[in-house]
């Protein structure tokens, strides 16, 4: 009888230690604030190479004072493309407030898994400008990045091309909606004869 009593108490002790071990619950929290000296995206450069003629077309959108309300310099933000042509396009994102100028494009490529560039031709361009993104990230399955793409023109038309860089940390899924916008700029596009 005594032995049964001892075994029972021994088992109770083991049970108690196990319960104690698994029931401890506490919470600790740390926060990392924004890093000082963030870079700016002051300049968006589109460089297009005609796959037939090798002609190069460059358009530049620039805002060297991004913290004020002055309008951006769009005098060079114009793409003049030939109809019925295919162009290999590359976008460059620069911080021209730094010396030397910082190429943010490489950083975007390194952080491709949560960035995506979107291209929206205006309705006046309609189907006369088709775009296919040609690069992808290393997510599984891979998702588009948009640093390189093909621009395919058909008939004469004019309109705007809206270029948006979305920052989608841990929410990138190939769609526009999740995340926030890092860059949102417009280029004038003229498709000529």
């Amino acid at each position, binding site marked *: 009888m005594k032995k049964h009593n001892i075994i029972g*108490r021994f088992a109770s*002790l083991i049970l108690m*230690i196990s319960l104690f*071990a698994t029931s401890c*619950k506490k919470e*600790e929290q740390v926060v990392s604030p924004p890093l000082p000296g963030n870079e700016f995206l002051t300049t968006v450069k589109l460089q297009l190479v005609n796959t037939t003629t090798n002609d190069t077309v460059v358009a530049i959108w620039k805002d060297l004072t991004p913290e004020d309300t002055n309008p951006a310099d769009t005098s060079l933000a114009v793409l003049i493309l030939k109809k019925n042509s295919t162009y290999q396009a590359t976008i460059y994102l620069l911080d021209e407030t730094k010396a030397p100028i910082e190429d943010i494009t490489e950083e975007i490529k390194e952080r491709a898994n949560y960035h995506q560039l979107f291209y929206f031709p205006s309705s006046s361009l309609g189907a006369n400008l088709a775009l296919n993104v040609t690069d992808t990230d290393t*997510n599984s399955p891979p998702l588009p990045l948009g640093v390189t793409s093909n621009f395919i023109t058909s008939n004469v038309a004019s309109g705007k091309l809206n270029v948006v860089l979305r920052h989608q*940390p841990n*929410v990138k*899924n190939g769609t526009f909606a999740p995340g926030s916008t890092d860059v949102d700029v417009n280029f004038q596009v003229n498709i000529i004869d």
Partner: protein
Amino acid sequence: MKNRIQKIALLLVFTVSFTSLIAQQERGKLFINVLGGYTTAGGNFTKTDYADANSGYAASGGFNIQLHSGYYITKNLAIGVVVGSRFFQSNGLQTLSDGYLDDFDVDSTTVTVSGDYINMNYLVGPTYTFPFGKLSVDAHVLAGLSTLRTPEMRVDLEDNTAATFYQRASTGSGLGIQAGVGARYFFSEKVGVELRVDYLSATPDVIIQNENRTNAAGRFLNNYKQQIGGIGASLGISLAL
């Protein structure tokens, strides 16, 4: 913390009442030691280098409780079992949070850790006793199952709740080997105190459960297998039955 103190107090009360009852019973070849104390860990388990996947982010010091019971098969040699727990808080979480901040290029990150690293040990092995009157010195070697339960980690990226991801509390097991020496002093025929030092070696293999890792970015662990052992010093009650 208050909850833990209450549990320790409860455990002590239970142990003392258990002891007083046992002390009245006849002596046998059985011994039961209930111990608690400080324990250490080292190596990668306590590293806080964000870039190193082996970093365990555990504190280098924690506490342990263990129950060691054995039965003497000869005058000096006993075969015993240990059921023990070691507890370690998290450490260096700021480097973890800063690492995610940089890796996801966000304005702020918050890392929230729930629970401790809990190492449970279920070991069997011999104890050899050198008696010196009321004092006895024990040496023991035990081996068996060692488990590790990692705490839950939640990472918030800015205030976008859709981006929040988790490293869920996960448990794995492996071989554990413990060796140590202890000194027991008996106040009476059956009841005494024990002071002991143990070294534990254990490398449990933990499959880490992750949740809502939408993109391949930032520190990501799906497995953790590192040495979690260390030295522990314990004090407790010893019963000879």
